């Protein structure tokens, strides 16, 4: 009898696990089967809370992506009164899809009109996507914003080229580090002051909507900038140097203080050659070109190193893929 007890215990454990498994399968079935009936409350325990989508057209380089085309949804309500959109979204078993773009939301990959294609120092823009709530609830989503870099050898996906994995530039490479520091992403932009704020420094951000409504699409904007020169991040906003230039400061002087610390703490994200006194150069530059202590040697050294990094990115990186992914708890 003593030897039978463990067997009964193991058998009961297996049955419990089996029941849990059935539960998981049911959960997966509910997520993927859009014909499942039920009101908002009934779906609460089993359905995905949201889908991600964007609208208009394919990007100019989408043929290089392995992500599939999303599902077209029509006449989805937005936060704006009477405004509806028809996004192409995740769902229906499609969890990774191509991020559609338009003339206001793109990564310089919009083919419409005479738009410039591709990015380089001086490029900037906005990318928008929508979080489409599937039931009335408080949405609180952690997103991960990631870049995948490819060499210029990457080719369109085809029968003979299943993916461009052999062209991926390692995430721990010098170039990848420099891309993190030179192609910047922000959550806010003030059109009046032309300043960006809330930089996404660690590749993550949070979307919160306490009173999300079922079937409503909520827009999320991400601003991207590849500064033309380091001046735009370090010199004072009102520096006379900007008066004769076609570019200006892109972050506030207050944010420059934090940026100077970031330059010192993570120099490999900003300079290919870090063998100079970055702290002193940045500090001197931030006082402005009109400062009696302004040191042209520091200025030239920091800018030259910054430009070298831009050149290295341009020479090494052929394509940059941007992914936005919800982080599971």
């Amino acid at each position: 009898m003593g030897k039978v007890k463990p067997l009964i215990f193991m058998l009961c454990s297996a049955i419990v696990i089996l029941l849990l498994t059935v539960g998981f399968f049911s959960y997966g079935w509910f997520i993927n089967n859009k014909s499942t009936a039920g009101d908002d409350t009934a779906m609460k325990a089993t359905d995905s809370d949201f889908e991600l989508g964007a609208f208009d057209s394919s990007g100019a380089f989408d043929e290089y992506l392995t992500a599939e085309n999303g599902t077209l949804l029509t006449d989805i309500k937005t936060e704006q009164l009477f405004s509806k959109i028809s996004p192409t979204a995740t769902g229906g078993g499609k969890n990774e899809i191509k991020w559609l773009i338009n003339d206001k939301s793109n990564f310089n990959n919009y083919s419409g009109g005479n738009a410039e294609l591709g990015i380089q120092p001086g490029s900037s823009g906005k990318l928008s996507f929508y979080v489409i709530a599937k039931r009335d609830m408080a949405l609180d989503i952690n997103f991960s914003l990631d870049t995948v870099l490819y060499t210029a050898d990457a080719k369109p996906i085809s029968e003979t080229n299943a993916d461009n994995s052999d062209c991926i530039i390692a995430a721990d490479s010098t170039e990848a580090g420099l891309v993190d520091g030179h192609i910047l992403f922000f959550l806010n932009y003030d059109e009046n002051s032309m300043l960006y704020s809330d930089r996404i420094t660690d590749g993550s951000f949070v979307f919160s909507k306490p009173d999300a409504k079922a079937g409503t699409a909520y827009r999320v904007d991400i601003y991207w900038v590849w500064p033309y020169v380091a001046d735009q991040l370090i010199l004072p906003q009102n520096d006379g140097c900007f008066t004769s230039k076609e570019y200006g400061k892109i972050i506030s002087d207050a944010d420059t203080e934090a940026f100077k610390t970031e330059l010192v703490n993570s120099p490999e994200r900003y300079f290919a050659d870090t063998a100079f006194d970055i702290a002193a150069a940045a500090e001197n530059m931030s006082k402005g070109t009109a400062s009696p202590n302004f040191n042209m040697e520091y200025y030239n050294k920091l800018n030259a190193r910054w430009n070298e990094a831009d050149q290295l990115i341009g020479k090494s990186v052929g394509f940059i893929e941007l992914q936005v992914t919800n982080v599971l708890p």
Partner: protein
Amino acid sequence: MKSNFLKSNIRRAVIAVTAAVVMIAGSATAYAWFTNQRRLATITKVNSPTVLAIGAGAKESSLNIDMGGIDVEDESGKKDFVFSVYSDESVEKYKLQIAHTTNIDFVYTVYKAVEHTSDPGNDRVEYTAENGNVYYYTKSGGAIPGSYLNQSGKIADKSLHDKSYGGYNRVQENAEPLYWQTADVIQPANNNLSGFLDYYILEISWSDDAVNNKETDMVYLTAGIA
């Protein structure tokens, strides 16, 4: 003996079923995990930062621009030098700039130039390439419009002094550089995806008052994306 055999088999069966159930449960968990992940992906091209270069004739290194040995006794009253502005990338527009000291009373004038592989005759500038080939350049059109940013008479005023020297004020007046730049942006000729190549002639002229007195001047040619 038989009873022990049966028990042993039952134990094995239960263990096998339990292991299978655990594996299935694990897969199902992973499945549920992945079905909750949503991702959008977009991709764009990275363009190389535009690089403008200044060279000598025949698109050779700027080291070959030799502006030494100007003889102001030359009755022509001028000497021409060819230089090029080029890029291996497409450039929409750029500006030309000249900075020079004012020790000698020279006048600097820039013209667009056309390259010839055979001698076109008079008024051409000759350039001998490193491989010995000779190229000829003639002016195309009138002088390129431009103006000095800090001129006062024949020397520089103090408006850009701080940009050059900071707070240092013991600078001889002729050592203070004059800065000249083109009035309009220049659109490269024959610009395409593989870049462009523009030639220019810098004419340095002088008046009858000029004398050979071993003075020297420094001249900087720069081209920048506009």
